[in-house]
């Protein structure tokens, strides 16, 4: 029984070893890389296809509609129809656009999004590159997305795309800071920059409950901060100002059509999956089972279940919140999330130096909750998060 569970858990690793065993030694490093990369290149775009239809159906239900239900059973062939449509559509390049950059921008975006998957542990022993500075690599490559977005906005030679790109870059740079600072607590607690190490640090169980970082005050706060920042990083609602349809039509990819537009879409969703996977790795114990008696379920199953749960959360948020205004967006990042993320680091440090659990729970919770209340009340009183007076529009 235990053997069968272990085999199921390691089946992909064993299959790869088996294939490598039959290949000539000179080819093995190359073949090993290909065998690691190709499943990721297949699995995540497939997840993207499933997510698009689930998202549209979910949003429909939230708005008391059916959502897509025509193509195939329950509308689940909709992504195929969408794919055919985007492949056969005319690819228009504006005559005044910078052709080379215009072509490269979606490619850079998708490549950057895929590169981040190199360090994400999908299951036990299932990581493409076990870098010991993997988290650093993740955030460094993640910033390439900003470059791609700005390439798209600038090369399109359109004021809407440029405005969208400016918004996107301002937003992404602002939210990168709380994003990285929120993840610092997990790095501190695990004492490792390697995603595999961070997952290993959350591996134990007390009773049946796991030692995930999200079950500590600083971990919970860090998780929430990370999620908010990741939503902003992946330009999703309510932080979808860069592509705000009602204001700047489609933002930085307004001049893109056909397959290039589909690539932007893919890149955006891959970014969201990568951020979710990083949140899972840092705070939700990676691929480990949520209860100790469920460890017989293969690790990659848990990873993808958690990923789907995160995606459902993102869809839920998207169906609930309206788009923020630019000043609200910036105010939230710099006046609320940045101080909270810094305080969270203090809380994590305090947690480490207080041995008694009840005391450290109380102290850390106080460090986080009290400033959170004071800060939000203060910001509301200063009316910087809610109301804005317009000079000319009233």
């Amino acid at each position, binding site marked *: 029984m235990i053997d069968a569970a272990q085999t199921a858990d390691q089946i992909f690793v064993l299959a790869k070893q088996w294939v490598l065993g039959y290949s000539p030694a000179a080819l093995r490093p190359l073949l090993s890389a290909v065998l690691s990369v190709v499943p990721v290149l297949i699995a995540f775009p497939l997840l993207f296809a499933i997510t698009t239809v689930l998202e549209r159906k979910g949003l429909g239900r939230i708005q*008391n*509609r*059916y959502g897509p239900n025509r193509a195939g059973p329950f509308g689940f062939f909709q992504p195929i129809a969408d794919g055919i449509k985007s492949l056969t559509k005319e690819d228009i390049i504006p005559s005044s656009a910078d052709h080379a950059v215009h072509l490269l921008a979606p490619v850079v975006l998708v490549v950057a999004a895929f590169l981040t998957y190199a360090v994400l542990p999908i299951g036990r022993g299932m990581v493409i590159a076990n870098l010991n500075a993997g988290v650093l690599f993740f955030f460094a490559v993640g910033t390439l997305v900003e470059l791609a977005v700005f390439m798209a906005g600038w090369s399109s030679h359109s004021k809407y795309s440029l405005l969208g790109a400016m918004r996107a870059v301002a937003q992404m740079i602002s939210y990168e800071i709380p994003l990285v600072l929120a993840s610092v607590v997990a790095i501190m607690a695990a004492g490792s920059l390697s995603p595999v190490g961070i997952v290993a640090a959350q591996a134990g169980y007390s009773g049946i409950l796991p030692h995930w970082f999200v079950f500590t005050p600083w971990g919970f706060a860090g998780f929430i901060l990370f999620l908010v920042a990741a939503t902003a990083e992946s330009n999703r609602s309510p932080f979808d100002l860069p592509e705000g349809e009602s204001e700047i039509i489609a933002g930085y990819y307004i001049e893109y059509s056909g397959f290039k537009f589909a690539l932007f879409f893919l890149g955006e969703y891959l970014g969201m999956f990568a951020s979710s996977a990083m949140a899972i790795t840092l705070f939700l114990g990676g691929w480990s089972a949520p209860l100790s008696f469920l460890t017989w379920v293969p690790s990659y199953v848990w990873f993808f279940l958690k990923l789907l749960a995160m995606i459902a959360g993102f869809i839920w*948020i998207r*169906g*609930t*919140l309206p788009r923020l205004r630019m000043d609200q967006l910036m105010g939230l990042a710099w006046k609320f999330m940045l101080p909270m993320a810094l305080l969270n680091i203090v809380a994590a440090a305090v947690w480490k130096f207080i041995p008694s659990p009840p005391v450290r729970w109380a102290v850390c919770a106080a460090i986080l909750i009290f400033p*959170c209340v004071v800060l*939000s*009340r203060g910001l509301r009183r200063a009316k910087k998060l809610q109301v804005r007076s317009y000079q000319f529009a009233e």
Partner: protein
Amino acid sequence: MVGEGILKGLAETARNFFGSYVDGERLTTVQFPEQRLAPIEATRDFPFLVYDGEDWHAGMRCVACQICEKECPPKCIYIEKSADKKPDAMGKAQFYPAKFDIDISVCMSCQICVEVCPFEAIKMDTEFELSTDDRFGGLLLHKDKLAKSNEHYHRIHPTEAAAVDAGLAAERMAAEARTKAAAEAKAAADTKAAEAKTAAASMQASGGGTQ
């Protein structure tokens, strides 16, 4: 505190999400091609030509007066008058349209053609599934396609069609009464003239006799 309103909103959307699976009342969407709502009586989109009786060509009310063509604001009607005449619904010899085309890609459904038509010959249709893969020829409707029976008109706009029919019947009655009166008057005049003629003749005859 930051987030209270967000949690309330999340609860509301979750209620909608699960409620839409439990409570069918929430889903107001009509699954269109299979399910259809009954059309509202005042619905209108593009004009059609009304004909009476069985044969659309014989019964067509249009007499090619071209008023609608002249009044049409976007100029989507094109009429050619016939060289010969044919009896219309009233039995009177009239011109008829040799050609009557409406470009429904230009038509703006204003109903002005219907307002100006003195013969109740053009009315608004409710047929909306007119998509075609030929965007020029397919959207230029000729008179064979435009001609629709009075029964069709009654089906889509019952109240309006009944009023139109009553009006036409009254007109026909009035016309008949007029012709009848005219005929009677003529007959009376004829008999009077004949009487006068005979009286004059007899007078002349008798006068001649005395002279």
